[in-house]
């Protein structure tokens, strides 16, 4: 197994082989997560800092669980406890943490590029747990893992991503990752929620009409509509958005029989979906994505911290 990355920030720096290594490793950790005793000593002695400078529930909790299950020592900072609240710069905070001889920083920040800045001022490995509207690579990996587990492949699948493409850090990583793995990507949403140059991310098709594209998709990936963004009026009302882009029971008739429904969470019932679709017993893989989050994050920690040298079974 060859894996020589130090950081997980820009998924575009990863090859299809690198990504498959991560997914295969996540699959192995999935077995660990289903044991009665869900813990291995793989990263014993390693110190991981969870620097979550903006609110996060699922990403933060799954990273923390991943660290615990790998026996790493973890330190939580950020949020209201961060010294940036007292005026300290991100760089000074990182240099202070670094003085503790830490091994990894997992960073969530509202500012794009924050993980990159940290790599310039710390010798630690860095995982981007979401930076502004830029990227969220572990989310992309857990999405790939979920699709791979359900469909047995990623290459050749037609994936439609629906909603706020332009402001989505998930898209910043997911679209390039899908392209690396050979999928075809269509983005769907109103013009006000489209990025300036979707082709730069690797998007194959841009469509403003969900009904046009639904019949062709193997995976329908719904993005969360940030209600707080409505003040900027990218669309007139949630009601109209739901009518145009909501995945409703009526729209299910347009979908392929085996098409999956995915969402990075948290979901807004009545906006992206109606409840029937969000909880669809066959199509919806949303909770599988949540579970995949732990497996993929364990894999990322393991591989980036050199766990491979010790062997997975150790």
């Amino acid at each position, binding site marked *: 197994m060859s894996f020589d990355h130090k950081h997980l920030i820009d998924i575009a720096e990863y090859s299809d082989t690198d990504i498959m290594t991560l997914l295969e490793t996540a699959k192995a950790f999935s077995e660990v997560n289903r044991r009665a005793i869900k813990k291995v000593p793989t990263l014993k002695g390693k110190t991981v800092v969870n620097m979550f400078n903006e609110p996060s529930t699922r990403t933060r909790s799954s990273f923390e669980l991943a660290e615990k299950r790998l026996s790493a020592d973890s330190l939580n900072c950020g949020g209201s406890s961060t010294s940036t609240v007292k005026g300290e710069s991100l760089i000074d905070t990182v240099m202070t943490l670094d003085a503790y001889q830490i091994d990894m920083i997992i960073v969530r920040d509202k500012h794009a*590029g924050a993980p990159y*800045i940290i790599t310039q001022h710390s010798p630690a490995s860095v995982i981007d747990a979401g930076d502004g509207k830029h990227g969220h690579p572990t989310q992309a990996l857990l999405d790939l893992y979920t699709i791979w587990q359900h469909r047995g492949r990623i290459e050749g699948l037609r994936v439609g991503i629906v909603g706020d493409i332009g402001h989505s850090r998930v898209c910043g990583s997911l679209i390039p990752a899908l392209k690396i793995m050979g999928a075809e990507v269509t983005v769907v949403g109103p013009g006000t929620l489209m990025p300036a*140059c979707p082709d730069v*991310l690797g998007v194959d098709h841009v469509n403003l009409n969900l009904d046009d594209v639904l019949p062709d998709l193997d995976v329908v990936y719904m993005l969360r509509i940030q209600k707080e963004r409505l003040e900027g009026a990218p669309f007139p009302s949630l009601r109209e958005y739901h009518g145009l882009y909501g995945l409703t029971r009526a729209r299910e008739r347009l979908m392929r029989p085996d098409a999956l429904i995915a969402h990075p969470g948290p979901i807004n019932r009545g906006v992206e979906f109606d409840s029937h679709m969000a909880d669809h017993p066959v199509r919806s893989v949303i909770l599988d994505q949540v579970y995949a989050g732990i497996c993929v994050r364990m894999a990322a920690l393991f591989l980036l911290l050199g766990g491979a040298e010790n062997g997975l079974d150790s």
Partner: protein
Amino acid sequence: MALILRNAHVIDPACGLDGVLDVRIAGERIERVGERLEGGDSDDQLDLTGCCLVPGLVDMHVHLREPGYEHKEDIESGTRAAAVGGFTAVCSMPNTDPVSDSASVIEFVLSRARAAGHCRVHPCGAMTKGERGEILSEMGDMVAHGAVAFTDDGRGVQSAGMMRRVMDYGKMFGKVFMSHCQDEDLVGDGQVNEGVASTKLGLLGWPAAGEELQIARDIRLAELTGARLHIQHVSTARGVELVRAAKARGIPVTCEATVHHLFLTEDDLDGTYDTNLKVNPPLRTAADAAALVEGLVDKTIDAIVTDHAPHAAWEKAREFELAPFGMTGLESSLALVISKLVRPGTISYARMVELMSIRPREILGVDSISITAGSPADVTVFDPNLTWTLGRDGYQSKAENCGFAGTELTGRAVDVFVSGRPTLADGAIC
């Protein structure tokens, strides 16, 4: 006692000079220009073989930061940077604290500049009080105390009605109105060029149209009012085209381009989040930069400027969205223009002198300088073949936020005179 500058390649397209000559400076003025001038026994002589001698360079867009932001730069350090960059004069922008919107601030800037003595400073006054775009500033009073032009640089005047009032009222003073074209409603919190950079970096986009709409608006207002308009730091191909079309229609409009918009593009930001490349307007596309160069060649663009915008290192060492806009340029612009435009043959030294000396003075309406008898002895001497690395030996500016740091350059100012007095001698500040 006089000083004879010998064997320099004198370039001054305003008076048709382009050859090896001697220049005799007596007191504050040039006394004579000719081949192998005879000197008196008491004359000082300086052999400038291999160097070029041109009318003193002017940067018509500089932030000296004083008063109010002396931790970034002050008039002493800013003008020292100007001298080492080969400039004999700079035009200071009014977005200081307090804003230069009154005669007292204009007088303060001039008095500090006289005390520093490294180059002339031509202060710009704000068009509106506090640069808030709401109330006319006392332009008449500022002109009476030395303001040479008006601008709300740092932000555009958002109201078209207010901009018209500025032009209609202020045109009686005969000064140029320099416009920072930025439609805040369209640009919002834009950080980088809207397009590839904003999509790749996940940063809010600053659309080209956010600049072009105000360029078009202000051109139309100049046509309506008859006021002289100068477009600051034009950065887009369509912006250049708008100015080109306006000039063809005889509207009194001029424009400038910065060295960073000429020689850097949004591609340089790729993967770096380098806050030294965060400028306003943002670095645009390669096609935009090419259009700017074309505008220099066909004379649509009248001046090359730096928009020298110094910031403390700690201010730039932030997340991209939190860092202030701007980069320095006074110490690098001459060498960049020589290295990237003149040596490759895109423009001549004569055109460079027009862009960096002659036209800026004409636009600002300040004393014309030429290499002729009787002219004030404001002279820049540069070695066109001297190679050096930007930033290796430090900076005269207090700030180091230069997006070209580490670049190998060719050409550098070696001697600068202001009113016959040396401000730079053999590359060292006097």
